[in-house]
């Protein structure tokens, strides 16, 4: 695995943010806050890792939040209207998410639409679909009925690892949410896929130069469609975590999450010009955003200032990545000059 300077800087920046808030924000450095960070932002990390794939193939997925909403409502309907057991609902939810992502990819490669336009269109379409299939409208009483299926609600489980390991006698440990371990699993699978498989190399090649990739025999269309499918699956996993947390789904579930996911991916060093990035960066980027938001809230900073701060962090990340790119280019130029 290649460690980019941007990734190392990101880790350093994250550590710095944590250190600063630990000193300045009351109750930031507590077990409960770490638990809140894990439970509140693991799903964002999963979304960001999923979003990284379309960006890696030089695209973007604006519909990822809407897919969260569609999958959430499908889970709601299947559980509360059709009374399907959770072990049936879970795989169906993943398939629906994958299909929604594949539709995005298909629109881009077969209709030759710009990714921005294609996924903007599906964002609107999927949001409309949520209202069309909303069990909350079809059966009004369900608005106040929570989902009780243990397979689904079980995703919102916490583990007292500190207690089990005997560490809790020495220090107060956070309880680890299952969603955090799901995030780690998604990270391991996707990172392996990206760096250890041919598909991963193809993704980087397509993002780097799709024409060169095509001439090298890579099925650019298939790679692109699968990349969007992965984003859809990640959105479905995030939806399941949210439905488990809230014991319901709403028509607005996932609204605006695409921007948080894109921001996390970009902060995590995934280049918007494609071909450059890993799964590590988006995951850390999501928790960095989470740490900033939690820290500022604990400090009593107004939320509009928090939003401005998030924007500044994003700009700084993009600027730094750009700077590295320019340095790299000038380095190559010097290298060539020396050779010449």
């Amino acid at each position, binding site marked *: 695995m*290649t*460690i*980019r*300077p941007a*990734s*190392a800087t990101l*880790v*350093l920046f*994250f*550590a710095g943010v*944590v*250190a600063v*808030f*630990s000193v300045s924000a*009351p*109750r930031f*450095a*507590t*077990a*409960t*806050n770490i638990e*809140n960070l894990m439970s*509140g932002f693991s799903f964002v990390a999963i979304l960001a890792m999923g979003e990284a794939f379309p960006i890696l193939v030089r695209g973007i997925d604006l519909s990822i939040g809407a897919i969260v909403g569609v999958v959430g409502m499908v889970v709601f309907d299947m559980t509360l209207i059709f009374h399907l057991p959770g072990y049936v609902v879970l795989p169906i939810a993943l398939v629906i998410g994958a299909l929604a992502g594949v539709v995005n990819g298909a629109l881009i490669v077969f209709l030759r639409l710009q990714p921005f336009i294609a996924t903007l269109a599906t964002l609107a379409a999927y949001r409309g679909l949520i*209202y069309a299939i*909303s069990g*909350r409208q079809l059966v*009004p009483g369900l*608005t*106040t009925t*929570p989902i009780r299926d243990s397979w689904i609600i079980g995703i919102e489980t*916490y583990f007292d690892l500190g207690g089990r390991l005997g560490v809790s006698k*020495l*220090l*107060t*440990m*956070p*309880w680890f949410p299952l969603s955090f371990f799901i995030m780690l699993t998604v990270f391991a699978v996707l990172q392996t896929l*990206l760096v250890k498989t041919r598909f991963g190399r193809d993704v*980087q090649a397509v993002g780097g130069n799709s024409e060169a990739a095509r001439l090298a025999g890579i099925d650019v269309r298939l790679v692109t469609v699968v990349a969007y499918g992965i984003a859809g699956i990640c959105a479905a996993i995030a939806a399941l975590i*949210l439905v488990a*947390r*809230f*014991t*319901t789904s*709403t*028509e*607005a*579930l996932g*609204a*605006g999450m695409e921007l948080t996911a894109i921001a996390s991916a970009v902060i995590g060093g995934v280049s918007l010009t494609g*071909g*450059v*990035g*890993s799964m590590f960066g988006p995951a850390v980027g999501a928790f960095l955003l989470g740490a900033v*938001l*939690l820290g500022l*809230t*604990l400090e009593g900073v107004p*939320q509009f200032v928090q939003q401005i701060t998030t924007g500044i962090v994003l700009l700084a990340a993009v600027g730094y990545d750009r700077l590295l790119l320019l340095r*790299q280019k000038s380095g190559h130029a010097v290298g060539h000059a020396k050779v010449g």
Partner: protein
Amino acid sequence: MVDDKPASDRRSFFKTVVLGSAALAGAASGMFGVPIAGVQSPGIPLARAEGDRYKMAFIQWQPHTVPAAWSKGIEEVLKPQQVVDYELLDGQNKVEVQASLMDTLVNQGAAVIFLQPIDSVALAPSIAKAKRAGISVITLNIDATEPHAAHVEMNHYFGAMDIAKAMGDAMGGKGKVAILNAPPGIIIRDQRTNGFVDGLKKHHPNIQVVADQVADWDRKKAQDVLNTILAANPDLGGVYGVNDSMALGAVDVAKEKKLIGKLVIFGNDGEAGALESIAAGELTGTQYTDVYQQGRLAAAAAVVLATGGVPAGSFAKQSHLLMPYVIATKANVGTIQPSQRW
């Protein structure tokens, strides 16, 4: 991704890991010596006043005149107490943001949380978590399925029934009306719509609802939607906006099309702008609730719960307070005092 890996980068990474670990270790040091009292799950400390002060916060749905007025009413009661630190937090119209803010307040050991939940079910687990931590939760306007200390709400359903009666009276008991509605999925939308429709059935069965369109609580959107409705129903006799912003959007259209006096328009909430419009003879009426008072009542309950040391889960049955209201029309709007206008 496939950058070359110069040795300096690798060194830089290890340096980063070492520095990062040190920073995280420093952060973790804050976890020492904070024993958790009692048995809770998962890992939350019992809420209590920090020293002699009590932390209270109101998590609003999103910035709007109604929660702003509640917050003002709450502050009026809490500030003179001089032992309460109060803040207004923005849920940004997202359940995940509200849940995250609830978690943060639990972490802060708040004494009482005022909550305008976006969804009755979605925030229930967060309320349960707050209760386990000993924090009393008071909901405003939208109830939650998890029983909690108290719920203070406008009288949505019966108020809407009375709006239907007053509107039908103004229309002479017949004609066509349109509803400018909120997006689906919100419980008060259903209460305000169902109350209106049931009110028409009960008091004015000859009035027909010809359109029920979503205008997103928004004045500008209401203008666009009503223009479309009027194109299809030029003989429309009445418009009901489920909030005042949308009703005032209808007033804008009526002014432009010179329908003031012909189109009967009712809103719901009773904000200052709507009362001024009624006094000017533009908006026909609205359901007025003293929202400052609603905030004050919630705050008074909060002070009792916090300073009286009432445990968060000790209630036999959740308190439920329906606010009194009046159907404000030109005939009575002058009786609403300036200090009651929000």
